[in-house]
């Protein structure tokens, strides 16, 4: 088999669409079911909250060019507003990466964007506005997680009391409802083992580990709290009691809960190790500032334990998004209150050690890193009512390179100055996923071909 360098590069891009291995991801936190980007991403799609008095005030999908070889590198190349404010929050791609699902925690609307027809110019394919009715009362569509040919959505709340009891809701990739799976509670454990004091039925994030037929969920708080002003909520003792204290391991295939773990202080994002021998997942607790490990013991039983602190828990740094590296040895942990990105060496998952930190901004939430770990992107917004006030309410997208020792800023976009809104979740896109050549590379190749033809004609 003979390949020149150009064809090898092309083969590398083609591998994007194959999804041949759970160890070939771009964003290292994505579903193992998903098609993978092996090389350089071309776009970051930022699901952005509209802000009153800023630009068109609407939630929007912002497309940023992030390939350094692109002529428009480092700029916003497209915005797509969705006609109102919904408390835009998280987003997720389907397994074939044809559609990007993005949710509104307040309106319960779900926007499905077509990102495959023209990855540089997403379009709105469908809006789901009956999520609560279809799901049987689930409120606050949060995580959108790719399974084979479908999307699993975690809820944050319910329409009965707008508290934290909620469910997982399953849809087809193109937006047809399939099923609702309620979280186990003391009233109805659904066959799950309650391993501690709590079975609160709360929800937040979700990850799957197909190699162990396992699915994991964490827990946050209901609509009553996440739509409340942050300062007001902190002063309300009753409100502060209404946070999740659990994580659940599920049978992935049957969608049945197997075991409920106590995990006090609102465990949020879940990230599972990639290597087949590393059967564990990390999460961090927002209020108690701890790193937790859910792991399979030698008997094949899933266990959970706190394995380290993040900063000084007494100061409530509020760990938010986390990101595991492709080799399972590193964990980025963002703390909202001090705006820090913190890198933990987790080569011993039972003993994480923080080895680096950097202040990214006055507040910090999300991170997306490339598969090789050399690029990391950060955004600022947590929730509309929880973001800082006044000048401290910086809203940004920042692109860094990581050399293993320090983060170096490559470019940043001020979402307020650009009148875009509050920057939240990021997802990657690439031409190669859809068999498309990058336009600037195709143009250069055409010029080359034309030059060669001219040379031949002149001979």
């Amino acid at each position: 088999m003979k390949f020149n360098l150009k064809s090898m590069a092309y083969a590398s891009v083609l591998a994007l669409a194959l999804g041949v291995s759970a160890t070939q991801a771009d964003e290292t936190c994505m579903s193992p079911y998903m098609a993978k980007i092996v090389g350089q991403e071309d776009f970051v799609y930022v699901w952005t909250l509209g802000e009153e008095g800023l630009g068109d005030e609407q939630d929007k999908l912002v497309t940023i060019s992030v390939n350094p070889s692109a002529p428009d590198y480092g700029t916003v190349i497209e915005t797509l507003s969705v006609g109102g404010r919904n408390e835009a929050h998280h987003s997720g791609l389907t397994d074939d990466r044809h559609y990007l699902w993005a949710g509104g925690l307040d309106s319960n609307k779900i926007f499905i964007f077509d990102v495959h027809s023209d990855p540089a110019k997403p379009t709105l394919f469908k809006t789901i506005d009956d999520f609560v009715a279809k799901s049987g009362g689930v409120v606050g569509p949060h995580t959108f997680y790719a399974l084979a040919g479908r999307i699993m959505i975690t809820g944050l709340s319910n329409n009965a009391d707008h508290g934290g009891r909620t469910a997982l809701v399953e849809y087809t990739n193109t937006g047809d409802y399939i099923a609702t799976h309620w979280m186990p509670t003391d009233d109805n454990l659904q066959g799950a083992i309650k391993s501690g004091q709590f079975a609160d039925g709360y929800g937040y994030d979700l990850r799957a580990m197909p190699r162990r037929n396992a699915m994991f969920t964490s827990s946050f708080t209901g609509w009553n709290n996440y739509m409340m002003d942050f300062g007001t909520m902190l002063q309300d003792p009753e409100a502060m009691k209404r946070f999740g204290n659990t994580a659940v391991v599920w049978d992935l295939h049957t969608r049945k809960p197997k075991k409920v773990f106590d995990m006090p202080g609102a465990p949020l994002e879940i990230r599972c190790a990639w290597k087949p021998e590393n059967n564990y997942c990390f999460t961090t607790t927002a209020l108690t500032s701890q790193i937790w490990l859910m792991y399979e013991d030698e008997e094949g039983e899933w266990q959970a334990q706190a394995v380290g602190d993040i900063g000084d828990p007494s100061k409530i740094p509020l760990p938010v998004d986390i990101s595991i590296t492709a080799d399972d040895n590193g964990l980025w942990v963002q703390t909202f209150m001090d705006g820090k990105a913190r890198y933990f060496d987790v080569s011993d998952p039972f003993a994480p050690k923080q080895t680096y930190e950097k202040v990214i901004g006055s507040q910090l939430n999300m991170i997306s890193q490339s598969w090789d770990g050399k690029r990391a992107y950060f955004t600022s917004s947590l929730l509309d009512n929880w973001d800082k006030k006044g000048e401290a309410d910086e809203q940004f997208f920042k692109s860094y390179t990581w050399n293993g020792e320090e983060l170096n800023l490559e470019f940043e976009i001020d979402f307020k100055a650009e009148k875009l809104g509050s920057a939240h979740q990021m997802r990657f896109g690439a031409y190669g996923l859809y068999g498309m050549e990058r336009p600037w590379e195709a143009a250069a190749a055409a010029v080359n071909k034309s030059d060669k033809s001219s040379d031949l004609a002149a001979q």
Partner: protein
Amino acid sequence: MSKLSEQRKRVLLALVLLMSSLIHNVDASSESSPTPEAYLAPGWGKLSFDAPLAGSYNLPAIGQAEDGAVLKSNGDPARLHKLMDGKVTVLSFVYRTCDDVNGCPLSTMVLYTLGNRIAEDPALKDRMRMLTVSFDPEFDTPDVMAEYGESILGDADIDWEFLTTNSETELAPILKDYQQSVVKDRRQEESVEKERNRFSHILRVYLIDEQKQIRNIYSLSFLHPDILVNDVKTLVMEADAASAD
């Protein structure tokens, strides 16, 4: 498992191990990507957990399995719905020259193993049919699919149809209906002396009940004979319970 099926499995495994090394070399030479390790999907080995017991879970309907015009391997025109009539159906898409270790050879091997296990069970033998449709009508003519089917099946007693279509135009709506993502390698299109097509595709296999509703979709992470056998049994048990009511 019969001696014959073991032999066929070994031949398939040898093929994919070869292909695995090729994939590794291509990726390792790329300047823009890290070196991925050669990886064999779980379907090639022993399932690393016990498949949930048949009948102990529900498989909610994912949507209607769409119809489409196809050609049987004897050249006769047929409709997908007609072929699905009265049986639980397992549907896969492949192309004859696919050499992705975790693509078509994987799904073919898993379906072959599934078919044998179902064939060995008198209660299930006549309840399941497998349909494999080619992505590549340009090269995978009915004759080619017939040869392909014979090379896979040998004398195995499995209800398995190897199908193709008249043209890419006739294939396109089927792929669209099943949301089967396929990207044709452009280099092949540009080649003057094209000998074969290449495609990149998400591996998907569909489980369809007797009412022609899709009840499960499998990608490489979960495509394993142990899981499929129990899912097929679950649908048969469900159908039997419904007809008894």
